[in-house]
């Protein structure tokens, strides 16, 4: 399967290169749906300029990236476009390999279950053959690389692509069974934006399932492995944070990055739910609602982990989707990451009852975002309510599609 994948990578790189060289690149890098205050390229450039001047990049409340990012771009800022294209390629290949491994696991489990005669007769047509599943990893890679959301995110040079790459590599390491690498990559992903913390639970469940350790709170083997994994994760996180301190020589980055993500001071419109709400909030309720909104992101882990403990990969997908809907500064790059997983369960599409309506809603909303932005900001005929209506509808469509997809289990 190397040849089609290479072809796909070449096509994807060509599209991105063409767009980088056209006049659209400027326009796209200013769209609020594609870049947010957390991952805009303009802000990275600003932080680099401040760093060159010897001032802390976090002064002035413009730059909200982690110190690793600044130092990475300090060295590769001249080749930024290539870096982002390569990142997209890495994500696609990581997703390809992960889904391949996942399919192998699923197929093996299916074979064992079939041999031990555990399937009722009318489920037989749901069984998958290797022939059907052969093209799925390629489709996953295609869904990621040729998704307009990903292309827009790459052309805008939004660092969301890098975050997606880290999460994709984390998924690959988890599926391959390497707890150490998985813990380190998860720590890196958490270090970048705090929300991947919720992926700890599905990764842990996957390893427990893989090592045949039953999820029973009374068993010592369960606690032993959990503590090991947690130690790797927390240890890597501490080491990474410490390294960041030594890179820049101060703890400035903690309030600027994590404080910014949690307290949501910047209310630039985006495709998320926070901005409009907090623009109208009275000051003395602000802390309460910040807590409510942020707990919303983390809270679904508990019931979902309990319900989906037999299907940890599906749980990872659901978690990523929930993060990208409810996080404080979502962009379309986050949406593209979880959309890439959809072909992995393509044999179950016939059970998606209202998928037509939901996908029409998502498509129409994506088309209406720039139209209503234009009417609000440039023509002055609309106002923020119109734009927030489309945001709400878009998020409603996403939640509804998650709802439908959760019927798979």
């Amino acid at each position, binding site marked *: 399967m190397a040849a089609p994948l290479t072809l796909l990578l070449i096509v994807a790189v060509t599209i991105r290169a063409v767009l980088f060289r056209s006049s659209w690149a400027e326009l796209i890098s200013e769209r609020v749906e594609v870049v947010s205050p957390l991952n805009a390229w303009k802000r990275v450039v600003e932080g680099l300029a401040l760093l060159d001047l010897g001032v802390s990049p976090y002064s002035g409340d413009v730059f909200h990236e982690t110190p690793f990012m600044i130092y990475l771009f300090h060295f590769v800022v001249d080749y930024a476009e290539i870096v982002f294209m390569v990142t997209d390629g890495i994500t696609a290949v990581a997703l390809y390999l992960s889904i391949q491994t996942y399919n192998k696991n699923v197929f093996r489990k299916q074979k064992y279950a079939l041999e031990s005669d555990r399937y009722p007769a009318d489920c*037989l*047509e749901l069984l998958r053959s290797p022939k059907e599943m052969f093209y799925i990893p390629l489709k996953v890679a295609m869904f990621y690389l040729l998704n307009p959301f990903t292309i827009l995110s790459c052309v805008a040079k939004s660092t969301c692509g890098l975050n997606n790459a880290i999460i994709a590599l984390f998924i690959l390491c988890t599926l391959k069974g390497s707890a150490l690498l998985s813990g380190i990559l998860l720590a890196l992903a958490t270090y970048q934006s705090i929300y991947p913390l919720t992926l700890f639970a599905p990764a842990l469940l996957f390893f427990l399932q893989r090592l045949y350790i039953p999820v029973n709170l009374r068993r010592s083997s369960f606690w032993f492995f959990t503590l090991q994994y947690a130690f790797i994760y927390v240890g890597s996180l501490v080491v990474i944070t410490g390294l960041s301190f030594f890179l820049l020589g101060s703890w400035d980055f903690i309030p600027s990055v994590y404080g910014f993500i949690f307290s949501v001071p910047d209310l630039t419109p985006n495709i998320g739910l926070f901005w409009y709400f907090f623009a109208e909030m009275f000051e003395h309720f602000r802390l309460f609602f910040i807590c409510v909104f942020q707990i919303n992101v983390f809270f679904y882990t508990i019931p979902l982990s309990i319900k989906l403990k037999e299907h940890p990969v599906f749980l990872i997908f659901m978690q990523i989707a929930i993060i990208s809907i409810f996080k404080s500064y979502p962009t379309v790059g986050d949406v593209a990451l979880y959309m890439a997983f959809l072909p992995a369960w*393509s*044999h179950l*599409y*016939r059970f998606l*009852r*209202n998928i*037509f309506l939901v996908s*029409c809603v998502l*498509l*129409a909303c994506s*088309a*209406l975002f720039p*139209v*209503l932005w*234009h*009417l609000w900001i*440039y*023509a*002055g*005929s609309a106002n923020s309510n119109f734009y927030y209506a489309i945001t709400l509808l878009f998020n409603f469509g996403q939640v509804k599609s998650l709802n439908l997809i959760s019927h798979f289990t």
Partner: protein
Amino acid sequence: MGLLSDPSRRKVLTGLLTRLNTPICIVCYLAGIVWFMGLAFEPFTLRTYMSENAMGSTMVSSGERALSLAKEFDAHKRQAYDGMPVEWLVKAMQSRGLEVFTQSFSRKLPFPDENKERYMVRGTNVYGILRAPRAPRTEALVISAPCSPGDSNNQAVGLLLALAQYFRNQVYWAKDIIFLVNEHDLMGTQAWLEAYHHTNITGMEYSPLQGRAGSIQAALSLELSSDVITSLDLILEGLNGQLPNLDLANLFYAFCQKLGVLCTIQGKLQRNDWDTAEGYTHAAQTMMLMVLKQACGRSWGDHGLFLRYHIEAASVRGINSFRHYKTDAATIGRLLEGMVRKLNNLLERLHQSYFFYLLPSLSRFVSIGCYMLAFGLLVVILLLRALDLWVHLGAPALAAVEGVTEAQQPSGPGVLTVLTPVVISHLTGVALYLLPVHLQEMAVEHFPVSETEAVVLTAVAIYTAGLALPHNTQRLLSGEGTEQGWKVLKLTALLYLAVLLGCTALINFSLGFILAVTLVPITASMTPHMPKALSALVMVLLSPAFTVLYCVFIYQELIEAPVSVSEGWMLFLSVISQGILDHALYGSLVYPLLALFIYPCWLMFWNILFWS
């Protein structure tokens, strides 16, 4: 959604949908058209009212000598070979106590404009700023008059200067007033606005403005070509169908009534007999004229370019027709002074009244909440058809749950058969957009035509060449699953058209509605199983190009200047060239929309018709 997730109820619903699809579509289409035509019926409209409280009552007085200034301007204009008499204007404005500045601009058009006979345009704008005596210089109002060659608009410039002199002596101005005389009408205004707002969206070269006055709250553009006029026409339609706030039109109408000046809209006077057939026809004609003017996306007065910068602007044109009651320049001066005083009182930009409306007459309006339903009924047809196709496409898959048959996936190898027509149609659209202007030199070398004719005829040629496409794309496809293939293509194309028309209607309702009226019936009913020759003819007759042709003929009928077929054809060609020029010069979106999106969509349906 218990209704949709319960399987038995779902089957009933989908069965209903399949059986009643065509009748519901026909009913929706007729309802949409009838609703739209009914919008002009007076009991369904609302009376206009002033929404902005800051524009309260003001006192208005008189005194100008506009006409002698107009004659002087005319004389100096002739001396300057119909160009702009810059020095005289500068002196005249300076002697009236304004701060005067000039701005030069130049632009090479992509091809010669045969209507206005220009190709390489160079001009100068002259503007004077009347500083508000006691206010901070944060806001401004603009009064502009275009300097046109020949006899037109002299009186407008004269009135402008007289107003400037009168305004100078008043102390109640809270905003700076800019008196702008622009050359080459829309191009001068565009250069001035771009320089004022420090943008360059159309590639014009201009010298930067030396003097500035704060953010512009409102603008008025005057066009007066005769000493006495019988009525004033209000022009509201701006670039891309954008309209100023309705309060500006209400203000104008209120002042006209107060001073006893006849005012018209679309050149038509209001009638009081709404319950007769003639009265209704009159209102419907006025509304249709507004819809046609809005749909073509060009700016019908110099004010149209201000709207893009969120500056409410309107044009006032004086008309001299055969009536007994004539108004002189003094009354018009009082009218303008009253309007400017009211605008002076604004605390914030006009935003209280409607931005989206249709005017069957000056005292009645239809708001977006009423007219959008007509459009919605038309788009619902597309969505119903798409739903029907989805149900049909999913039906073999649902049947497989009972039996052990292979499930048909709509995505998969089917995507490739859909992708080829989509890509080829869009490439043709890109060719239609780019090639006419780029290939004009080559065309002029090989054929005995002028550049403008070359551009327009290339566009028509590419459009017609697209009709031959289906016979070529079919050879590229492997032709697998043909029944499935055209249904998937039609589903994609219907959803694409629905989203496209929806986005268009939000920005420019008239354009979206007119396109919907002609495109929806053919696209909803198109299948490969219909009689090929007849449906091909109907499809071509309702294609976007012919829609434009019909609009040209209907427009000429409505302005009571009907044309013969050959004249109409020439007018149609000039409309195409104007559309391309408007896009290049001012950023009008009609030509790119038609070439890059609507035409490829229509081509996809043409492809479906010839699906083998």
